[in-house]
């Protein structure tokens, strides 16, 4: 294994993630500072220790309304539960990485790093170096963009103007194409997406913690197992 090459591949694969995080992290920093009254240090510490976009936005919204800490923590637990499923599905791929290292590096497991890494593991074996390059670079990007946003909290910038807000949807699109290897994968993806939207439509509150994604994914994978090869 070429360690340097693995690390660099991980870093390179993180570039589009960092690009997508920039407007999200920046906006989080701005809101944390100007709306929720958090200092630059507090906003940055949250990005270092939590690394949960949805959860951090919830925290800012609830802090602004003066909610209790326990409410914010429970909302964060719900919003992060999907990672339990993601992490479990990564276990078979991570056999090639020492357990302790894989556990530590999964600090950096997010929707985006998950998507990029499963597309990578579909073609190459997992290594500690690749995982470190991908997850740490993404995390550093998240921390830097939120710190920058918090520093500029008072001058709210419109990041949407430059089209950067479409970076994440575009990334999901190409990653989906990459992980669809069998006809059944395409069926599962389409049905799961439809079920996910249907749940969101029927119970809009599920969109706040993405529990619709969890329920639809569980159903979708189960459908996959029952499909004829």
């Amino acid at each position, binding site marked *: 294994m070429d360690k340097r090459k693995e690390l660099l591949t991980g870093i390179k*694969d993180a570039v*589009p993630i960092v*690009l997508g995080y920039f407007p999200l992290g920046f906006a989080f920093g701005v809101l944390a500072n100007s709306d929720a009254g958090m200092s630059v*240090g*507090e906003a940055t*510490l*949250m990005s270092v*220790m*939590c690394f*949960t976009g949805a*959860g951090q936005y919830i925290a800012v919204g609830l802090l602004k309304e003066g909610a209790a*800490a*326990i409410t*914010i*923590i429970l909302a964060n637990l719900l919003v*992060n539960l*999907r*990672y339990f499923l*993601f*992490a*479990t599905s*990564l*276990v078979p791929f*991570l056999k090639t990485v020492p*357990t302790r290292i*894989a556990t530590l590096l*999964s*600090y950096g497991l997010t*929707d985006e790093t*998950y*998507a990029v890494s499963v597309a990578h593991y579909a073609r190459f074996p997992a290594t500690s170096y690749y995982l470190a390059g991908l997850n740490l670079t993404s995390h550093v990007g998240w921390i830097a963009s939120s710190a920058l946003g918090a520093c500029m909290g008072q001058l709210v910038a419109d990041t949407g*103007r430059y*089209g*950067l807000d*479409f*970076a994440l*949807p*575009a*990334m*999901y*699109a*190409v*990653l*989906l194409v990459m*992980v669809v290897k069998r006809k*059944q*994968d395409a069926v599962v*993806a*389409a049905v*799961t997406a439809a079920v*996910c*939207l249907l749940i969101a439509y029927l119970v*809009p509150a599920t*969109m706040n913690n993405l529990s619709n*994604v969890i329920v639809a*994914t569980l159903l979708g*994978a189960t*459908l*996959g*197992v029952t499909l004829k090869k």
Partner: protein
Amino acid sequence: MRKEIVLLIIGMSIVSLLPRMFPIGTLSRFEFPERVKEWLSYIPAAVLGSLLAMSVLVRNKTIDFSLQNHYVLAFIPTFAVAVFTRNLFYTLATGIGCMAVINHLL
């Protein structure tokens, strides 16, 4: 830094990191049965299908299929490039470029 904010961040950190680290730390020693492995193999397509649909179609907490939703407009060329090139860079460039043009013109 205020003490209550630091405590809040620690609490959030625990509930954010446990679901990610616990399965990797504990389950890696087990070999899953074939049936479970097969089930897990569908998770990436299912998750990405859902996240893609949500990120394109949900605007301000409501589902919007119409072309008034700029994301739907930008999605069409972006997805075409994704399918034909299977290349992350070209797809991102198309997506961001189209979105910038759409936001500028509409």
